[in-house]
C-alpha cells in the first residue's frame, strides 16, 4: 500500500515554505506571494486554471495558519493579515478539521454510472429491475436519472456486460461514522456532532480538500518562549525518519525545542495502571474491558457506541500521564505533542496540560525548512527514557501485549484486537457491549496497523512497523 500522492507532497511543500518564511522573519511580508510562486502566469495549473489553483493554495495556507475556511468573512482579506493575527493569538480553537470548499470537487451524487460498455441490449435488466424506475434508454444507452436513483446498486448487479460501475465518494466512503456528507451545493461538510477526528476523510480525498487546522505557527512561536518548549514525542516517531532515535532527539533540539520527552514514558505508566484496573474489573466480574489510549476510539464511544462506555478503561492516556509529569517538573515550558494523529488535536483541546499538537508530517517539513538533516545530527538521549512496553504501543497489538504481560500469573487475559475503526468494526463493538465478546480485553486502534499508520505519518507504515519492532526488541 502506498499512500503518498501529489496532494500530500503539495501540503508538505506548503508547510515548508510557511516555516521558512517564519524562520526568515518574512512571514507577513511574503506569504501572499506563495500562491503566485507556485502557479505563475502562463504556467501549468493543477486545476481548471491558475486562478483556481492559486485560490486553493491561499485556502490551504489559511488552514496551515490555523484558520477555519468555513469562517471566512472577507474573500479579499490578504494572507498577511491572517498571518499577523496568527502571530499574536494566545489560544487555538475547535474544530480540528476544515473543508476547503473551493478544493472539493463535489464528487458524484449518484454512485452508479453507466459506461460506454453499455450495449443497449434488448433484455435491459437494469431498467426492468430498477425499483425506482430511474433508468431510461437515451440514444441506445442506459441513462440513470439522478433525481430518482437511490444508489441501491441493483442495475450494476444485473448488467450482463458489467457496463455499470460504482463510483465512490472517497471521503464519505472512508468515514467510519457517516460524519461527512454533501451540502445543498454538493460540497462536502463535516458534522461535528458525529466526527471522531480519525482523519480518514482527509487522507482519502484525492483533491486534498479536507485539511487540519495546523498549529505550526503556534509551535514555532513557543521556541522563543522564555520557559522553553518541550517536545512530547509519540513512540511512533521511531520509524519516521531514516536515522537512529537518538539523532531524532538532537534534530528536535536543533529545530528549537528545549527538551525532548518520550510519550512512551507515559505509556509505561498507562500500561501499569491499565493492567491493575483490568484485574480489578475482572474481580468484579465485569465481562471485559477495552483500551482507552486511542482518542478517535474514545470519541467514537462518546458519539456512537455509548453502550460500551462502562467497559472502557478509565486510565489516563500516555499523553495525559506525560503532560502531568512535565507540568510538575517544568511548569513554565510549553508542552507540544508530536505524533501521527489528528484525533490527538481534539484530546489536546480537552486537556489543558497539552498546549499544542504537531504531526510528524509537519515536523518533517519544519526540519526541511530549517535545513536540518536528521541523519547527520548528533546522538542524544531523550529526557526520561521509556521502557520497551510503552515504546511498543504504536504498533497494533502493543497495548494488548502490555496488559497480557502486566497481569501474567495473576489473572487470565484473553485479548482481542480491533485493528482499525470502520463501519464493520463499530458494529462488532456494539455487539460486544451486548454481551457477545469472545475475549476479556479489547485493544482498539482507529488506524489499521496502529499509530504507525496514522494520518500524519511520513514513513510507509510497513517500514515504520519494522523499525518500531526492532527498536523495542533491543
Amino acid at each position, binding site marked *: 500500500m*502506498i499512500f*503518498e500522492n501529489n496532494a500530500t507532497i503539495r501540503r508538505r511543500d506548503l508547510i*515548508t515554505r510557511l516555516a521558512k518564511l517564519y524562520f526568515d522573519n518574512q512571514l507577513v511580508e511574503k506569504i501572499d506571494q506563495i500562491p503566485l510562486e507556485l502557479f505563475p502566469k502562463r504556467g501549468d495549473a493543477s486545476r481548471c486554471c491558475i486562478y483556481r489553483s492559486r485560490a486553493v493554495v491561499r485556502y490551504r495556507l489559511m488552514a496551515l495558519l490555523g484558520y477555519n475556511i468555513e469562517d471566512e468573512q472577507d474573500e479579499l482579506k490578504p494572507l498577511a493579515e491572517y498571518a499577523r493575527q496568527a502571530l499574536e493569538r494566545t489560544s487555538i480553537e475547535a474544530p480540528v478539521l476544515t473543508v476547503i470548499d473551493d478544493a472539493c470537487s463535489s464528487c458524484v451524487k449518484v454512485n452508479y454510472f453507466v459506461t460506454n460498455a453499455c450495449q443497449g441490449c434488448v433484455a435491459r435488466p437494469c431498467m426492468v429491475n430498477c425499483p425506482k424506475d430511474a433508468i431510461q434508454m437515451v440514444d441506445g444507452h442506459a441513462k440513470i436519472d439522478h433525481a430518482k436513483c437511490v444508489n441501491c446498486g441493483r442495475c450494476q448487479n444485473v448488467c450482463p456486460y458489467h457496463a455499470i460501475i460504482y463510483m465512490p465518494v472517497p471521503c464519505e466512503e472512508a468515514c467510519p461514522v457517516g460524519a461527512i456528507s454533501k451540502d445543498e451545493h454538493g460540497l462536502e461538510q463535516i458534522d461535528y456532532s458525529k466526527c471522531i477526528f480519525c482523519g480518514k476523510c482527509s487522507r482519502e480525498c484525492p483533491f486534498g480538500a479536507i485539511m487540519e487546522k495546523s498549529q505550526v505557527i503556534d509551535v514555532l512561536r513557543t521556541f522563543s518562549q522564555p520557559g522553553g518548549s518541550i517536545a512530547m514525542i509519540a513512540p511512533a516517531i521511531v520509524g519516521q*525518519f531514516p536515522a537512529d532515535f537518538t539523532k531524532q532527539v538532537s534534530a528536535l533540539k536543533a529545530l528549537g525545542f528545549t527538551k525532548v520527552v518520550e510519550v512512551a514514558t507515559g505509556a509505561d505508566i498507562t500500561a501499569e495502571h491499565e493492567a491493575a484496573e483490568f484485574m480489578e474489573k475482572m474481580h468484579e466480574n465485569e465481562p471485559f474491558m477495552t483500551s482507552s489510549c486511542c482518542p478517535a476510539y474514545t470519541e467514537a464511544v462518546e458519539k456512537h457506541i455509548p453502550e460500551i462506555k462502562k467497559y472502557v478503561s478509565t486510565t489516563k492516556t500516555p499523553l495525559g500521564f506525560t503532560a502531568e509529569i512535565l507540568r510538575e517538573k517544568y511548569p513554565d515550558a510549553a508542552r507540544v505533542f508530536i505524533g501521527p494523529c489528528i484525533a490527538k488535536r481534539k484530546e489536546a483541546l480537552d486537556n489543558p496540560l497539552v498546549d499544542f499538537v504537531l504531526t510528524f508530517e509537519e515536523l518533517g517539513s519544519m*526540519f*526541511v525548512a530549517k*535545513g536540518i538533516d536528521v*541523519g547527520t545530527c548528533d546522538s542524544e538521549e531523550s529526557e526520561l527514557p521509556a521502557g520497551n512496553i510503552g515504546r511498543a504501543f504504536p504498533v497494533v497489538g502493543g497495548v494488548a501485549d502490555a496488559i497480557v504481560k502486566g497481569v501474567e500469573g495473576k489473572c487470565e487475559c484473553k485479548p482481542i484486537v480491533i485493528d482499525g475503526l470502520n463501519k464493520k468494526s463499530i458494529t462488532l463493538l456494539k455487539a460486544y457491549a451486548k454481551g457477545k465478546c469472545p475475549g476479556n480485553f479489547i485493544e482498539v486502534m482507529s488506524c489499521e496497523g496502529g499509530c504507525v499508520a496514522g494520518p500524519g505519518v511520513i514513513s510507509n507504515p510497513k*517500514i515504520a512497523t519494522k523499525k518500531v519492532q526492532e527498536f523495542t526488541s533491543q
Partner: protein
Amino acid sequence: MAQSVSVKICTGTACYVMGGANLLMLEECLPEHLKGRIEIEGTSCMGYCSLGEKGKAPFVMINDQLISEATLEKITEKIKTMLE
C-alpha cells in the same frame, strides 16, 4: 544495454519528507525478471536539494543518472530502459 544497475535512493531529510519515504518500497514494485540485476541502497543526503538547479527532491541516482522529483514509476521506467 547495462548488465546491472545501482539505484541510490537519497534518505536525507528533505528527500525523505518530500516523497522519498515511499521510494524505499522500490524492491516490492520491481518486475520479477529484473530483480536480480538491480542493487538498491539508501544513501545519506547527496546535497542536490540545496542546489536548486538540479530540480526538486526526492533525488535518486541510477548508475550515473540523476532523477529529480523521483517516483516509483519514474525509477522503474528508467531501470527498464537501461536493462531492456
